[in-house]
């Protein structure tokens, strides 16, 4: 029994790893196609049918570029930094519940690599150490622009982490658990009779705060100040070339995928689809539908990230800090207090 669980988790970990990389690779393709759509161009269309082989061509190009290490850099840290960025980006996928339990030869298996007690805090923790890749890379390059990018990344990360944690606390208070499985399970059923019981309808303010913070934490436009090319050449990866640059860029897409998955899990019911339980009862069919629904939600948020990027101009750095400290954190604290008050009042009504 334990052996079969171990084998299942091992296979699942490898599949999760492969899916993260695959989605991230095709997110780069999607990004360019969507940019094309928004700017009335075609986007990549030469490599393969509809340009579908473009990510492979990009990867091949990255590998064959000259790998340059500046003479005045800290060599070991310079090489380590992209690895840290990639590692932390991939680690977060361990706690995402992909779908409802599946039935294999009479036993139910959770489709989640690590069902830990503190799932949501784990994701926050690994998001916060993700900045080390950027900081170490920026510092080790021994370049003013890289250092500026690294410093911007770290202060941005610390500022937005607070509001993000406070927004999540309201959800944790409502579901009474830190485990992502329990948070998804608490979103079954309906709310007010006609809406699905998703946290986004109960915590609209918290959701908006979380979404804005997720943009800042993944360094995506309009908050991509650490790599702001109009001010900092290339930001923290100015000195990077070849696949090291590739890893930095790629880890951004993986972060985007994972944070979309977390948004879908925490605020949009995860793998829940309203009313599906009335028509389908077989656990494996339910799991398949759940996985498809969950993926549709994730892909929508990846699209949303790109939609925002190609629509809004970049913030100025002081505006970014003001938004984080003077707007988002106070609103998040008020949201938390209101949630607490409502939860207490509900018991007396």
């Amino acid at each position, binding site marked *: 029994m334990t052996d079969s669980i171990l084998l299942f988790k091992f296979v699942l970990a490898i599949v999760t790893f492969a899916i993260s990389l695959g989605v991230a690779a095709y997110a780069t393709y999607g990004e360019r196609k969507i940019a094309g759509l928004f700017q009335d161009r075609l986007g990549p269309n030469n490599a393969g049918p509809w340009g579908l082989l473009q990510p492979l061509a990009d990867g091949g190009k990255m590998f064959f570029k000259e790998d340059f290490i500046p003479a005045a850099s800290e060599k070991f*840290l310079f090489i380590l930094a992209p690895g840290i960025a990639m590692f932390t980006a991939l680690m977060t996928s361990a706690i995402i519940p992909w779908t409802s339990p599946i039935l294999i030869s009479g036993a139910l298996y959770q489709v989640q690599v690590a069902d830990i*007690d*503190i799932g949501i805090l*784990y994701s926050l923790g*690994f998001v916060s150490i993700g900045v080390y890749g950027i900081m170490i890379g920026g*510092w080790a390059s021994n370049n003013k622009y890289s250092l500026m990018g690294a*410093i911007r990344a*770290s202060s941005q990360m*610390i500022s937005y982490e607070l509001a993000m944690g406070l927004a999540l606390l309201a959800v944790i208070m409502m579901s009474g658990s830190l485990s992502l499985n329990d948070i998804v399970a608490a979103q079954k059923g309906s709310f007010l009779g006609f809406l699905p019981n998703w946290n986004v309808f109960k915590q609209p303010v918290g959701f908006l705060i979380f979404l804005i913070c997720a943009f800042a934490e993944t360094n995506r436009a309009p908050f991509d100040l650490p790599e702001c090319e109009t001010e900092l050449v290339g930001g923290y990866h100015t000195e990077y070339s070849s696949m090291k640059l590739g890893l930095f860029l790629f880890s951004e897409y993986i972060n985007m995928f994972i944070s979309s998955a977390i948004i879908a899990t925490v605020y949009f019911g995860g793998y829940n689809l309203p009313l599906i339980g009335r028509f389908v009862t077989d656990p494996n069919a339910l799991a398949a539908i759940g996985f498809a629904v969950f993926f549709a939600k994730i892909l929508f948020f990846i699209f949303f990230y790109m939609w925002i990027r190609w629509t809004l101009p970049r913030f100025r750095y002081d505006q970014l800090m003001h938004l984080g400290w003077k707007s988002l954190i106070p609103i998040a604290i008020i949201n938390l207090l209101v949630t607490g008050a409502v939860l207490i009042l509900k018991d007396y009504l």
Partner: protein
Amino acid sequence: MGVSEILAYALGIISVASALLVVFSKNPIHSVLYLIITFFSIAGQYVLLNAQFLFIVQIIVYSGAIMVLFLFVLMLLNLNKDTEPQKSNLFKFISIITACSLFISMIAMVKGVGNLNLPSEPDSQIGLVKNLGMVLFSKYVIPFELSSVLFISGMVGAVMIGKKETHDIN
């Protein structure tokens, strides 16, 4: 030796070695990076004890927030051999004495604890959030509330100091 014992020893060696490197490295940024490794290896010990909440709090608070601030400040200061302030011998002498007395008091503490009477079958569920929360909000509620007051006074103090400086510039 079981797997967890080997891991515990390995993590212990890593934390002691990197803690020594914190002190001995010349470059302050390297010191901070070794300190981060120390914190991670301590977090690893918490995982082995199934203290999941302590593990993640160690990572979020120490590795994620405090050390990022340390790195941030050091990168801004950009310390290197040319700009390093020369410390006088008196200063070095005082620091050696302080460090030695701290070490002696720590040894005295370890000796003073005596027989701990550890349970032979420890409760592996004690470190989970639910049990920890129950204990914090019932048995240890007064120390918990007092430490939160301490944190608030620290925050207020930090805001006061920050405000004063901007006032002077304006």
